[in-house]
């Protein structure tokens, strides 16, 4: 393991920033998210390592708005201009273990065997992930119950494992990419260290057999009970590290335009609105049911993993406190 004193973290980040495009968790006027390190350097934002960020790192791979290509009408012809790929490697520092698992979920969708999304793949290939283990979970955290390894980040996503060791941070390379990155950093010491003690999570349950149970519950009254209070806003979908639905739309100005990919939410009416006006998911019940079943049943059936990683963001931020853990426990007890 390599170490750096916490007081020297800034110099480490400055080194990374000099070699890569560095993204770090920040607090920007009350919103915590990943942002370029220059924001911290210039004092616009403060480095935020006390807990997980509100806006998950999915924004790094699947930005809320992303131009897919530019187009313009030239006489009767259409000209297409591809968007340039990332021009340099980037480092994503401080991703929590739940979110590394979430990125693995996104990989299942965007790096599918049959089609790898080129824009997603470009960013995945060019990002070195430093994943930070959590010693002090928040009251809303339940990643352990969703099968996340709190001692080790998802191996297919993390490149460097970081541990908070009190006065210092410990770094362990997980991939070759991570090893090469660590080797090039100055001012680190080598040695051995005991892994930090991790406090237990206050929300804890056994979700064994959940997808199978839900399969029989499509018409269960539980959906009325939960959906009634939903506002059909997009907070849960947008802050969720695994919700990945998007819409493709045009942004036009004169004869030129952008083809945009923007986040979408299954809570919104336009999401399932069909040409001709039919709305297969007209109300709260159908929408809440779809979201929960996608997370806890459908994704399992397709990819053999849960689409909920237990980050707890929705419990903290849902305006009406729709509690997915209460729902899971109730289903298990059925």
């Amino acid at each position: 393991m390599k170490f750096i004193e916490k007081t020297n973290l800034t110099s480490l980040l400055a080194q990374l920033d000099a070699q890569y495009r560095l993204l770090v968790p920040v607090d920007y006027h009350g919103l915590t998210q990943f942002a370029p390190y220059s924001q911290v350097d210039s004092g616009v934002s403060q480095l935020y390592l006390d807990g997980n960020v509100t806006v998950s790192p999915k924004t790094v791979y699947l930005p809320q708005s992303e131009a897919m290509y530019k187009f313009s009408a030239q006489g009767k012809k259409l000209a297409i201009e591809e968007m340039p790929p990332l021009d340099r490697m980037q480092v994503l520092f401080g991703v929590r273990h739940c979110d590394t698992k979430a990125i693995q979920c996104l990989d299942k969708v965007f790096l599918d065997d049959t089609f790898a999304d080129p824009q997603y793949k470009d960013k995945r290939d060019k990002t070195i992930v430093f994943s930070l283990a959590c010693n002090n979970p928040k009251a809303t955290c339940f990643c352990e119950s969703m099968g996340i390894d709190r001692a080790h980040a998802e191996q297919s996503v993390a490149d460097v494992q970081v541990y908070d060791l009190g006065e210092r941070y410990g770094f362990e390379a997980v991939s070759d990419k991570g090893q090469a990155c660590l080797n090039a950093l100055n001012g680190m010491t080598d040695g051995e260290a005991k892994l930090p003690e991790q406090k237990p999570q206050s929300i804890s349950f056994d979700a064994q057999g959940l997808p199978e149970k839900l399969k029989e519950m499509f018409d269960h009254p539980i959906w009325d009970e939960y959906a009634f209070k939903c506002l059909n806003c997009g907070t849960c979908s947008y802050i969720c590290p695994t919700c990945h639905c998007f819409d493709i739309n045009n942004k036009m100005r004169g004869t030129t335009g952008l083809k945009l990919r923007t986040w979408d939410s299954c809570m919104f009416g336009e999401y399932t609105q069909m040409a001709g006006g039919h709305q297969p998911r007209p109300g709260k019940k159908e929408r809440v049911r779809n979201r929960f079943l996608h997370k806890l049943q459908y994704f399992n059936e397709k990819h053999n993993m849960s689409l909920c990683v237990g980050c707890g963001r929705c419990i903290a931020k849902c305006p009406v406190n729709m509690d997915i853990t209460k729902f899971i426990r109730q289903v298990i007890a059925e």
Partner: protein
Amino acid sequence: MPNTFAEIQNEMRNIAKELLESGEATMVIGWEKGALPYQSTPVMIRSAEDVDKLIWDEYCQQNLSTYLIDYIYTDEKVAIFAKGCDTRAYNRLIQDNRIKAEKSIVIGVPCLGMKNAREAAKLPEGAEVPMANACKECRYPNPVTFDRKIGEDVTPWCTERDFSDVEAIEALSADEKYAFWQSQYTKCIRCYACRNICPACNCTSCIFDQSASGWCSKDVNASENQFYGVTRAFHVAGRCIECGQCEMVCPSEVPIMLMNKKFIKDIDSLFGAHEAGIDIDTPAPLSHFSVSDPEEFM
């Protein structure tokens, strides 16, 4: 008279039980405890056996009046518990013809001000939690309309709004104002939680749900986000009951009430003092026409 939280909670359960057992109401909407001590959340009670889920504490901030909209075209008769602000929302919804009085039962609950759940989440356990921002300036803690009422009226702790925050923004130069709102609306993720929780945002269809129209792009950036924020502020102007829920639910902590308060201040100076929703007879200043309206722009 029940006056403590526990006494009022007990009375809530008794009334809910009575209404459901007698068939006077087909459902009762109140609050239950959420996942964390500082979270209280709406609950629907359909059976007298479930009334013990109901709670009354310092985090029952969410307005339940807006749920009545969901049942306007059903045979349900819905009873709701309502604080002062919730009854103002109720009046506004009646005025906007979005709910029907005969399909609802309003059980008024005087309120001593709710606590700031967002601050509570940031404070260590056991720390003193301040009052929610909107509640600090509440002048109507007692229900302004009700079918039944629990507890004694409380003495309002605020007589006049504090516009110093609005004045601080007004004092900035145009560039500074622009920079301020730019930094705030850069954060907006367009989840529409502010719109969906707002009792004034009760339109059957919203401009922001019609992206094909081209009025507002789905591109999320400071410019489009501000277009959303400003349009919404204009649209709730004169109808905002100052419950502050928009700001409270914003995951990005955009100071939405600052803009709403600016509109309230301007309306008061242009059209005379107006308090939205304190009765159903006074029309909202921008919802009707009067020959004495200012018309400097004509």
